[in-house]
């Protein structure tokens, strides 16, 4: 009965190195989880690491905002209006004499929170709808998919504006709007994943053993759908922040004096020639955060796709 295993170990030259790692049959072979493998690969990806550093930087900036500068973010000081970057105000001040660095730091809190909650909301509802549509199929798939199609037929920012216009402009409502417009993105992703998984033989094996649908969904289908969901979440994090900034810029998101980056851009718009630093700081911040998330997202996709490595 053990002949086969002995063959495998006795002739390592026949196999390439990665295979022999899996197949040799010493007792100390470590269980090698697919997740660990992906994490290792991610760490080797320099762009992903750079993205990670950028995001960690902004998270720390948000957390330690009160300790960072001596100024409150809404402290109007008309004597120091539009001061250029200096040792006193590292990133200068805006038209109300508020320290821009302070506002950027507090703004990081807002942007990351918006990103987090909007993506979480979209992920939870999108995954739920996508799983139902994909697994049960038939008319319920038809219904859910058509709703997704309708949502996706609008340009996303236009839809967000419409939603905010209906429920009223505020940061929370902007967040809800962003979550809603991202639902179909997750929903369609999960649906297509579930449809392909449903045909997998190990799903049929699970049914053959007598598992109920709920257990198959939670223990077999969802864990195998997690990888693309993680990738999409990271990428959506960036777009959600961008959309929040766009809504803020249009005056439909955070209300003054909240230091939301998009709103800061809108306020500074009139001073583009007189005091360009008022625009550069929030603009670059938005760009960096979105870039950071996209870099991580791309890295994750490379690490978790294509399929699973055997």
């Amino acid at each position: 009965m053990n002949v086969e295993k002995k063959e495998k170990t006795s002739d390592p030259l026949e196999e390439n190195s990665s295979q022999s790692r899996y197949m040799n049959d010493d007792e100390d072979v470590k269980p090698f989880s697919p997740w660990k493998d992906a994490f290792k690969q991610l760490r080797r990806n320099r762009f992903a690491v750079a993205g990670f550093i950028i995001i960690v930087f902004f998270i720390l900036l948000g957390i330690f905002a009160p300790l960072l500068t001596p100024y409150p973010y809404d402290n109007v000081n008309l004597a120091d209006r539009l001061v250029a970057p200096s040792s006193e105000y590292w990133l200068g001040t805006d038209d109300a004499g508020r320290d821009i660095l302070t506002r950027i730091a507090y703004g990081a809190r807002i942007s990351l929170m918006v990103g987090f909650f909007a993506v979480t909301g979209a992920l939870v509802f999108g995954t739920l709808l996508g799983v139902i549509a994909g697994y049960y199929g038939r008319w319920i798939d038809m219904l859910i998919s058509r709703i997704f199609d309708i949502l996706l037929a609008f340009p996303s920012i236009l839809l967000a504006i419409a939603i905010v216009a209906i429920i009223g402009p505020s940061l929370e409502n902007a967040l809800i709007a962003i979550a809603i417009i991202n639902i179909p993105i997750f929903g369609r992703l999960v649906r297509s994943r579930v449809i392909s998984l449903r045909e997998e033989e190990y799903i049929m094996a699970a049914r053959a053993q007598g598992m109920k649908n709920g257990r198959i969904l939670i223990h077999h289908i969802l864990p195998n759908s997690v990888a693309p969901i993680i990738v999409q979440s990271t990428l959506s994090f960036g777009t959600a922040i961008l959309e929040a900034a766009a809504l803020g810029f249009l005056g439909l998101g955070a209300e003054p004096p909240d230091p939301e980056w998009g709103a800061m851009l809108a306020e500074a718009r009139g001073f583009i020639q007189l005091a360009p630093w008022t625009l550069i700081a929030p603009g670059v911040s938005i760009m960096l955060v979105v870039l950071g998330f996209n870099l991580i997202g791309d890295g994750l996709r490379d690490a978790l796709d294509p399929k699973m490595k055997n």
Partner: protein
Amino acid sequence: MQTPILEVNGLKKYFDIRGGVFGRKVGEVKAVDDVSFTVMEGEILGIVGESGCGKSTTGKSILRLIEPTEGKVKFQDKDITELSDEEMRQLRRNMQIIFQDPYASLNPRHTVEKIISEPLLIHGLTDKNERKKRVTELLEIVGLSGYHASRYPHQFSGGQRQRVGIARALANNPKLLICDEPVSALDVSVQSQILNLMEELRDEFNLTYVFIAHDLSVVKHISDRIGVMYLGRMVELTEKNKLYDNPKHPYTKALLSAIPLPDPDIEKERMILEGDVPSPANPPSGCAFHTRCPLAMEVCKEVRPQFNEIEDNHFVACHLYE
């Protein structure tokens, strides 16, 4: 060997072909078209046939993994086609399946322990330590070791994975195993190990197998009786030796004459079939084999032959023997 454990009667599975703008039904593929056979307790019934002849669909329909279109499947004198989902779920512990592809039939995110203990859990073995003990026991039964339990499927070779699949199928002490080409994805050397293992397990646990394969030598090695399928129909069914020594149906003859012999000097009478297998979406009238049969008569084009017992325990569906 005497009591029937599984009786399949007039099993049919038609898949709808949908087309056009509104997805109307425009035809159907007759994957399994009126198949009947009986499996005795403790025996191994082989089912052979070319790709696409409905062997796997038959196997999966028996377990209702694919819902049959028509026909009765009696397992231990209980008609399982009429059971509710919950009753069927309970019964599944007694009838299990081993899949063809050991790479696709194990969830890549689960450890071997989880894979094997899941059927135990869902059929009521809730104690974690008991489950763990049983998993180790099962792994040893199939020729692996307890320490394999914490590994993931991708850390095993094809043969080892198939052993895991067998352990999973055995978890709840089933009576009947449907083996859906369990060795055709494996290397020849590993095939024989798995086949030997399956034979040992049959003796040890008094199992009954329905063994589906396209490899005639594999089926000959393991089966007691063999059924030959062609285009969704069973054309011949008899004991192994009768089938190999004295095949009746022209298709079986052609199939057997295609087995290569190890000695190149032996002159062998080959019976070579012309043409391709007809599409099961549009099977020929009468006997499905008449388009390729060298002995076809007028009646073959019009009347579908009955599946009759022409000798003791030798069933054939052919007009030559009526």
